[in-house]
């Protein structure tokens, strides 16, 4: 189109602030942190600066703590399938043009919108093993159902509500200080507490809204065609709706992975300080400890870059397969 000879110049002007900010606060730091990860840089001046090559990465491979915290990070992802399935269920339920749909949607979205330190402090109080309402409720249920009388009658141990945040028990029986499984550790502990809270926060959040949008985009002809062929509700969902939702599901799974790989800091800092015995310390928390409590900037950067590499690999997978899924 003629009469607009200055577009390039104008574009440069419009992009300038954002690009400048991007260079200073994203691109520059990216290169800088890669460089730093090959040094022993420590903000405490007592240790002389030196380029250490791949030493940090080597150390990291044999860093027992790193692997434990990696396991913690992966363990906390156990809530992910539950959360995604829940979001889908909510979206399907909300997609029926029921009365009060907007009110429900608002309520479901509320926790994820307000999530933050205040909610975490609230949940810390809810989980309090002695005075918290969660255990009060569990206690009440145990007594009302007379479950313990039954169990003891059958020769089992009586059940008690879990200790939650101060407890290292977990569903896989993982021992906190080393990579080993022990029967005495089965139960619900700090990690499960964080997972349950995470599901409560995220179940009606952005994922539900994405599913809701995707559901309204499922071509109605396909659904009707299937119904005419005699398919029931479940069959329609399984063979028509679910495949149509595949790109959304893929996107949500990828984003959840990326999010949880670098997540877990806030709740651990507020609710458990990474404990008990480091069971809620994720890799992000480890980076924080190394960089801002022990001032080992070099080592912390190396951990960050390992994390980044994993995230990058997942993103590449997303690009490779995500496009294919899109042209379903």
């Amino acid at each position, binding site marked *: *189109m003629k009469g607009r000879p200055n577009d390039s110049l104008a574009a440069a002007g419009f992009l300038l*602030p954002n690009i400048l900010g991007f260079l200073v606060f994203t691109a520059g730091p990216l290169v800088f942190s890669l460089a730093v990860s090959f040094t022993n840089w420590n903000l405490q001046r007592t240790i002389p600066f030196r380029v250490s090559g791949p030493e940090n990465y080597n150390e990291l491979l044999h860093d027992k703590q790193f692997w434990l915290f990696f396991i913690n990070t992966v363990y906390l992802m156990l809530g992910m399938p539950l959360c995604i399935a829940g979001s889908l269920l909510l979206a399907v339920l909300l997609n029926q043009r029921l009365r009060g749909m907007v009110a429900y949607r608002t309520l479901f979205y509320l926790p994820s919108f307000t999530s933050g330190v205040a909610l975490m402090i609230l949940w810390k109080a809810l989980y309090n093993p002695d005075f918290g309402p969660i255990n009060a409720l569990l206690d009440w249920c145990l007594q009302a159902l007379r479950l313990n009388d039954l169990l003891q009658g059958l020769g089992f141990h009586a059940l008690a509500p879990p200790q939650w945040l101060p407890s290292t028990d977990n569903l896989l029986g993982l021992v906190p200080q080393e990579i080993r499984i022990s029967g005495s550790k089965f139960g619900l502990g700090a990690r499960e507490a964080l997972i349950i809270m995470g599901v409560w926060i995220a179940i009606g959040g952005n994922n539900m809204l994405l599913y809701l949008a995707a559901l309204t985009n499922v071509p109605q002809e396909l659904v009707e065609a299937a119904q005419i062929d005699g398919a029931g509700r479940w069959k329609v969902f399984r063979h028509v709706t679910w495949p149509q939702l595949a790109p959304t599901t893929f996107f949500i799974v990828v984003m959840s992975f990326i999010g949880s790989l670098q997540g877990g800091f806030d709740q651990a800092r507020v609710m458990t300080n990474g404990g008990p015995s480091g069971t809620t310390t994720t890799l992000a928390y480890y980076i924080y400890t190394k960089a801002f409590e022990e001032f080992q900037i070099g080592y912390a950067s190396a951990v960050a870059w390992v994390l980044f590499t994993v995230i990058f690999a997942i993103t590449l997978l997303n690009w490779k397969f995500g496009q294919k899924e899109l042209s379903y």
Partner: protein
Amino acid sequence: MRLYEPARAPGFASWWYRQGQFIASHAVLAVLALTMLLPFLWMVLASFKPYEEVENLNPFPSTWQPENYSKVFEQVPFARYYFNSVFVALWVTFLQCLTSAMAAFAFARLRWPGRDVVFRLYLATLMIPGVVTMIPNYVLTVKLQLLDSYLGLIVPASFSAFGTFLLRQFMLTIPPALDEAAWMDGAGPWTVFWDIALPLARPGLIALAVFTFMGNYGSFFWPLILIKSEHLRTLPIGMLYFDSVYGKQTNLIMAASVMNLVPLIVLFVCSQKFLVRGIQMGGVKG
């Protein structure tokens, strides 16, 4: 020729089926909605309890004590925390909306060689995790002597690839005829941006503004490592210290939490129409 018949002919049985399904759906939704609501209710009730009752299992206070709320302000500079959070969040929101809208305009409404390649590169930066850039940004802030200052909280947060992406999505939906007409009339790029693109992208701008505001209002990591002096603490940092120092006073802590959450809830209820669309557009793969 084969005749196709609907699986369930409309009739009496089908009516019952639909009613049953309707009731079941509402039942499930209501239970889930209650699960979402109960923690908030417990928080409000606990915030009115006298101190002697915070270890009481009964969630209802025997005497309602609204002075808990004013006590929070006596024990910590809560008003200051409020001000800091809102002040920083408003500046970040303003700057981020402006820089994002300008970049989005260049990507959506201007024509220049290499535009789409640059945009794709730009989009790729969305996946750079915060944990990687956090440490260098901290070092940079120290070197610029912005540690423990408003500027240090505001400036690094004022640029966003996500905002650019979101607003570009919105600006792409503006019919080209609108700005072509303006160009023909000899309007400059700034006029087209300010008078046409921005007003038409308003739903997107509102969504971005709300997201940015609440993201910063609740921002935890960056202020935690950046702020040392008490008078610069934002709400999340203030809450963290309040909780660690006065943790036994659950009633006051909950009152503080309520005050922390109320502005968010109001903001959310007022803006949710825009938010829903913003999330749904931003989540579409670019």
